[in-house]
């Protein structure tokens, strides 16, 4: 791709005391791409998501969204610049209705909506993720699956240029998985760029244009899914030396 990257991560590091969770990570994401962020447990994927979304401040390195340096900025400012996220352990605004949850995502930043316009847009977004009939339910009463879908609708309400999904497909049964993958693919058609942390290999193979594989905080591969997954170093990271 020759276009300018939408997200550029350069030399990103995060230390927790003596532990280096992310160690000099660099990668780029181009507009319209779905990039998978993979790696064994504890390799720094979720920490990287936290750094990009502003939940954690990097120890070193830079993160650029388009032309803006966002490393170390507070999360609300990063959200307003166009990075929305879901959480590894699903988080909804439990006392509010589904509609209000989505309106919460619409209420801030440039292009914010309120009142009737917000309600209309929120209904449309709920319909998008197939939750329209539950609009007036308190979010805390939903099943886990519905909560994940609500989270996605709320993230879309933030009007993201870049969407970070942290194991959004985890815990789905095979038919739900097919639906979920179709939904994410439809979102890409709308021009939303995504970075996903994912363990579901079917989803990675069918969705991702490219995979960045991490191990112990470092990048060990950055290629198309098949190439990345068959890379000897990636196999070694997942399965140990004997299988490489």
């Amino acid at each position, binding site marked *: 791709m020759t276009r300018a990257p939408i997200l550029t991560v350069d030399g990103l590091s995060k230390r927790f005391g003596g532990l280096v969770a992310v160690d000099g990570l660099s990668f780029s994401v181009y507009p319209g791409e779905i990039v998978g962020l993979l790696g064994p447990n504890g390799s720094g994927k979720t920490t990287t998501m936290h750094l990009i*979304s*502003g*939940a954690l401040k990097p120890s070193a390195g830079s993160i650029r969204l388009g032309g803006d340096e966002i490393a170390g900025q*507070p*999360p*609300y400012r990063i*959200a*307003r610049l166009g990075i*929305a*996220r879901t*959480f590894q352990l699903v*988080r*909804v*605004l*439990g*006392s*509010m209705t589904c509609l*209000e949850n989505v*309106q*919460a*995502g619409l*209420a*801030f*930043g440039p292009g914010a909506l*309120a009142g009737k316009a917000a309600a209309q847009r929120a209904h449309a977004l709920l319909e998008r993720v*197939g939750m329209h*009939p*539950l*609009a*007036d*339910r308190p979010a805390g009463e939903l*099943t886990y699956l*519905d909560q994940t879908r609500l989270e996605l609708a*709320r993230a879309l*309400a*933030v009007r993201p240029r870049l969407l970070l999904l942290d194991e959004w497909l985890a815990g789905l049964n095979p038919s*739900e998985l097919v*639906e979920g993958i179709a939904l994410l693919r439809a979102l890409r058609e709308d021009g939303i760029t995504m970075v996903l942390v994912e363990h579901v290999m079917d989803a990675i193979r069918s969705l991702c244009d490219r995979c960045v594989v991490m191990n112990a905080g470092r990048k060990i591969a950055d290629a198309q899914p098949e190439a990345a997954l068959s890379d000897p170093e990636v196999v070694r990271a997942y399965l140990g030396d004997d299988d490489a």
Partner: protein
Amino acid sequence: MTLRQLLLLTAGVGLLAAAALTPLIGSGYAMSMAINLLMFTALATAWALFSGPTGYISLATVAFFGIGAYTVAVVGEALPWGLVLALAAGLGFLVALVVGLSTLRLRGVYFVIFTFGLAELIRQLVTWYEANHAGSVGRFVFLDISQAQIVWQLTAVTAVVFLLGALLQRSRLGLTLRMIGDDETVALHCGANTTAAKLLAFSLSAALMALVGAIVAPRWTYLDPTIAFNPVVSFQVLIMALLGGAGRLYGPLLGVIPLVLLFEYLSAHFPNHFSILLGVTFLAIVYLVPNGVAGLAERYLGRPRPSQPAAAAPAQPKEGTS
């Protein structure tokens, strides 16, 4: 405006009118009761403006209330009354702003303890200053303000508190505060500047509390830090708001009325056991009505939007099996 809102509005205006009329028809005792009711209604509702939606339980009510009262004690005679009130509210706002910057990072029980400590700290600071620099710990408040005028001023402030509360619920700030109460991390990642929202709401609530403190200060002709910064007031306001239900604008009022009457009865008949009985009341309320009277009422009288969940119900089986 729905029928329900209209009913609430009528009830509110009726209650305020009744309060404002007490000085014309009631005895001195009735006026004193009206002052107590209005004072705690304004304080508890102001408390719930911030603590209700966010779940940040503050025990600093009396810090701001006392700042208001002390403003009157110090400059009450030197400045015109309107200016004194404005100064009290401004000071409450400023102190809350400074304190909020450092404490609103704390959550849960740490925030509760800090606010309690703050009220005590301010009390000790005032005591220290008065003893070492003003020469005497107490001050006399001789102002030409009658009981009736206090009632009317409190009625006006209570009306302002409710008006602000109603505006807040419709505003983006109100939405932000509710989001913070549910999940502050989610609020941040939705683009909400949660620190600014908390600071603004906390300071606004504090300014109103200081205003109430200033208005009732002339009631005491003598004021010292143990009177103005009496921590029991913070606990009373807290328990009234919780009994009524801090999640609704009219909730605290439902707790203020029974508890002001109860406290009145207890302090008249059991002056020596007041604190013990107060504690028992706290325990009973938290144990028996965790969602407050407003929550109970809505459970038994129906929620404001009863038809919508029912309308969504037919879609349920499909959702469940998808």
